[in-house]
């Protein structure tokens, strides 16, 4: 494996970008998220870890209101981004999702060309005045996602023809293209091989400079490698949240300790 730069501890100084208070999520009668309050800092990578079914994805999807697309899902409590309640009736969830981008577990490029995949968001939101501006956005997004050199000669080939790891970076580039402030990633590497994973992790580390990133992962090593802060979920509860180093070296809760030492999961 290649040498990863150990993320330095920058945590405490940053502003809270997202703050959630007493969030409850119900799927019909299932109580999936129980009373979760958390502050997520700006320009930091925050990792959500926890056993399967504990509600990591559910909570992540609350942050850009993707849960609105599920009929049976009901969210209570407050989530503020930049001090603004995103569940306020005045907020348009569609606008919110341009500000809070999302990358999914399985790479899901559209069955369009690489160019059109990236240009999709900017076109919808009218971000480019003309064709040149659009090309500029596409190029810079691909550069930021570290994919430019690999695809610059084949922008009009279908995005589905790329390898899995390239597809996932394409999806990240696609999210970056609408200039979000927050990027949510739900197990972005679980469908990738170790080398592609390393590339994506490297990319996440670079993106931290400009974006607030929340990443769900099942790999403790990955959480340790890419995140500065870690939140441990268990059975719908947020058990413990803190600087990644502290969580892994010195967990306060017994359940956290059991999980990171592999006693359940």
């Amino acid at each position, binding site marked *: 494996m290649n040498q990863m730069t150990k993320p330095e501890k920058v945590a405490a100084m940053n502003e809270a970008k997202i703050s959630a208070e007493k969030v409850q999520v119900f799927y019909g009668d299932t109580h999936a998220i129980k009373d979760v309050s958390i502050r997520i800092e700006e320009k930091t990578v925050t990792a959500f870890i926890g056993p399967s079914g504990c509600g990591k994805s559910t909570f992540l999807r609350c942050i*850009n209101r*993707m849960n609105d*697309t599920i*009929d049976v899902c009901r969210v209570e409590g407050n989530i503020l981004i930049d001090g603004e309640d995103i569940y306020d009736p005045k907020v348009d969830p*569609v*606008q*919110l*999702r*341009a*500000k809070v*981008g*999302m990358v*999914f577990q*399985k790479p*899901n*490029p*559209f*069955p*369009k060309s690489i160019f059109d995949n990236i240009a*999709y*968001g900017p076109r*919808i*939101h009218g971000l480019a005045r003309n064709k040149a501006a659009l090309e500029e956005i596409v190029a810079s997004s691909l550069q930021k996602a570290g994919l430019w050199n690999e695809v610059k000669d084949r922008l009009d080939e279908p995005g*589905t023809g790329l390898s899995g790891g390239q597809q996932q970076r394409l*999806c990240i580039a*696609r*999210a970056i293209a*609408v200039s979000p402030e927050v990027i949510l990633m739900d197990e972005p590497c679980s469908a990738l091989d170790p080398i592609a994973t390393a590339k994506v992790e490297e990319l996440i580390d670079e993106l931290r400079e400009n974006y607030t990133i929340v990443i769900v992962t099942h790999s403790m090593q990955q959480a340790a490698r890419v995140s500065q802060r870690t939140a441990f979920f268990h059975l719908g509860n947020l058990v413990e949240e803190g600087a990644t180093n502290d969580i892994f070296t010195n967990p306060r809760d017994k359940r956290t300790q059991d999980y990171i030492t592999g006693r359940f999961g």
Partner: protein
Amino acid sequence: MSLPLIVLVILALAAAGFVLGRGRAMASAGGDIRLLHSLPGYYGWNVALAAMIPAFLALVLWLAIQPVVINGQVSSMISQASIDQSSLDLVMSDVRRVAEGLDTAVAAGALTSEQAGSIRTEFTDVRDRLGQVGVALGSDVTSETLHAAQRYRELSGLGDLGRAIVVLGLAVLGAAWAWQRSNKDFRARNSVERVVRWILIAAASIAVLTTVGIALSLIFNTVEFFRLYPAADFFFGLTWSPSFGGGSELGIVPLIWATLYISLIALAVSVPVGLFAAIYLSEYATPAVRAVAKPLLEVLAGIPTIVYGLFALLTVGPLLVDVFGNGGLLGVNWMAGGTAVMTAGLVMGIMLIPFVSSLSDDIINAVPQAMRDGSLGLGATHSETVKQVILPAALPGIVGAILLAASRAIGETMIVVLGAGAAAKLSLNPFEAMTTVTAKIVSQLTGDADFASPEALVAFSLGMTLFVVTLGLNIFALYIVRKYREQYE
């Protein structure tokens, strides 16, 4: 031995074979199933199949061959004189009829079987005797016919006896052979599965052979037609006016034109409506609405086309006349009668709506949820997602659905007969009566025309043309649908 009885006996033999085979295998393993190569049922089935399959095959063969052989034997008894008088076919059918009559008479007890074999026209009025037991004969029975009929009965009796012996013999032999092989090491499961595979292959070949048969009969008759009527006149002739006295003009162009015209109108109605309905149902409808609306829409697909035809004739046609006809709402006089291209096209369009919508619905649903999430996650609205991601992704499949709908429209008959009229015409006015290829096939074959005349044979070349066009469309549609399927994996 009668046919049903033979079948029953074979089945009984098979059932007995099942029990015996199973028992023998069990006995060879000393009653311990674990020592058997296969489950005990397989040994039973193995014996049962060995009893049934050769026996039934022999039975089918025998049934096909016996009449041919007997016919050949008996027809050599018919004198040239009576053949000259009518024809061999007619005489032979008389013979069969008398033979059947004698059978009935024997069965009814009016004659003993001895008498039936020995009565002579010289002494008895056979027609009268048979009339008494309810067998009506068209003409008096000549002694030659009676003789032939008696010979016919004799041979049939012999044949039936032989049939029973051979078939049941095969059943017993087969069962015995398989039973004797049933011991614990025999691989009964493999053997049964091999037989089952052959049965499946046989079923598949029946379907394929039927298609080939249909195509061959079409081709044969088409070739026959082109011998009587020049192909160029058929394909490029602008007039369709068959006259059974001869000198018909049989140009396909007006029929093809009307077929395409009506299909086009039908597609213009069904594609947008069906597609929008599919988008609504798959993307916007709540599960409750969908649960009610989708079956309701699909009920439309179950309505027989003749009912649509009535709807066209009784409702849509008059309604259109009220609007476009003389003294109608629009004050134009475009439409003379209720039957018109427009009437048939509209109704056919309604018929195709569920076809288009349920195929498109499946295709739209097959677009992975990940595509929707990806688009929504970028801040696209639901309708942007539908327009820019889902429909483009589903487009090839939707085109396939439309092509399939088109090939149904082209092949539709009942709605055309009742809705579009029977006059072959080449006109641009959609409110005029025209008729299509399919409707003309029906009318050419249901008349009194001699089957060997070009006026009747043209139906086959019409059918062939249609067959080629719809086959082409279907293949093209399947190709597109398949290509689409590969896209996500």
